[in-house]
């Protein structure tokens, strides 16, 4: 897939990296898109490695400037291909071992900055990221969380565009809330809100979940070089995240 002025949701991370490192008219947009997809996991790794919130923020920005703006990652991507997650994890690990780059980050910032980094600063970062997990586990968890969030946002856009706010709300209350807070709202509470029968609510949720699953697998597919590697990547991520058997669907 070739580079575009406005990187699409289906454009793979490899396409974006290649375009970001080029001199094309869309390179800045591609850089912003790949940065947006990557920084949460990078920050999570750095924060979980023992850095303070401020240090982790600086290092994340430095990493994005040095590694994403230089051709370093592009060269590695071309040479190794495979999974974007693995490439990114290796790059951030190496970056931390090469701390002196932090000092040069400011001088490498392009004219006009990078929108995604500005957004990161505006939104702030979660100070409690540190301590709960190993850096690798934190990285992988945030990598998956970013994919899930992107998929949920696409699902929300799709359903609202189709005028199906009820299905989005049912999905949000039953699935996203369970994933984020561990508690799903019951059908007894949801069904009257939309004037639906409980069984109909469940059937709508199934349709929404299927759509979400398809979108999420699309997002994951964009991070691997060979689409056939998706199943392997899912299984590896599940193992890395410490799969829980009692499924809260």
């Amino acid at each position, binding site marked *: 897939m070739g580079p575009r002025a406005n990187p699409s949701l289906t454009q793979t991370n490899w396409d974006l990296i290649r375009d970001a490192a080029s001199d094309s008219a869309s390179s800045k947009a591609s850089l912003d898109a790949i940065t947006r997809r990557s920084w*949460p996991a990078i920050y999570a790794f750095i924060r979980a490695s023992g850095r303070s919130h401020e240090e982790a923020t600086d290092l994340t920005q430095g990493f994005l400037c040095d590694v994403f703006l230089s051709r370093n990652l592009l060269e590695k991507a071309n040479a190794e291909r495979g999974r974007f997650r693995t490439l990114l994890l290796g790059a951030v690990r190496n970056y931390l071992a090469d701390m002196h780059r932090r000092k040069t980050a400011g001088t490498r910032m392009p004219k006009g900055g990078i929108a995604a980094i500005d957004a990161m600063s505006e*939104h*702030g*970062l*979660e100070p*409690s*990221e540190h301590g709960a*997990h190993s850096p690798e*586990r934190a990285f*992988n*968890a*945030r990598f*998956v*969380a970013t994919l*899930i*969030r992107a*998929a*949920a*946002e696409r699902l*929300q856009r799709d359903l609202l565009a189709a005028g199906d706010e009820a299905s989005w709300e049912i999905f*949000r209350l039953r*699935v*996203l*809330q*369970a*994933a*984020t*807070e*561990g508690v799903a709202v019951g*059908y007894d509470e949801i069904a009257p809100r939309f004037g639906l*029968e*409980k*069984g*109909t609510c*469940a*059937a*709508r*949720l*199934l*349709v929404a*979940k*299927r759509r*979400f*699953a*398809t979108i*999420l*697998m699309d997002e994951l597919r964009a991070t691997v070089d060979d689409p056939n590697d998706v*199943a392997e990547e*899912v299984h590896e*991520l*599940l193992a890395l*995240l*410490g*799969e*829980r058997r009692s*499924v*809260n*669907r």
Partner: protein
Amino acid sequence: MSKAHDDNMSGSSNHASGSSPQLGDTLRWAFELDTSPALAGATWLTREIVPDARDPFEAIVAATTTVEALEQLKSAYKMLRTTGATAAERSLAARLYAATIAAALVRHGQLITSQRGEALARAFSELEADTTMTDAIRAIAAQALTAARRA
């Protein structure tokens, strides 16, 4: 990531920031649902209403399944008849829909549909003849057919 932060990121709702196991759960079911056969959808739907059920057939024939639960299952399968991902799933949903009506009639003596007469008898008859259904479902259909003809 905190909820407040996540709200900032998404600009609207709280999207996916749970613990590793919860994220893994979401990833796992999404993968399974994306690749699952027809029965997986109906089974998932059934468990939303009868959480301990092993599959739709078991939930429908169980004496412990209340008439209210059967009505909920009926409306769920009714929608799945039209929204199912494949023809096989829609066909299965149609059979399960008829099965919930049969079970409510046989187990609870209640008719949970506005269908009457020949249409109802034909649905039960087709359900009884369907060899892809379990023996228990077919037996319930046979009893329901008798009850419907008596009524």
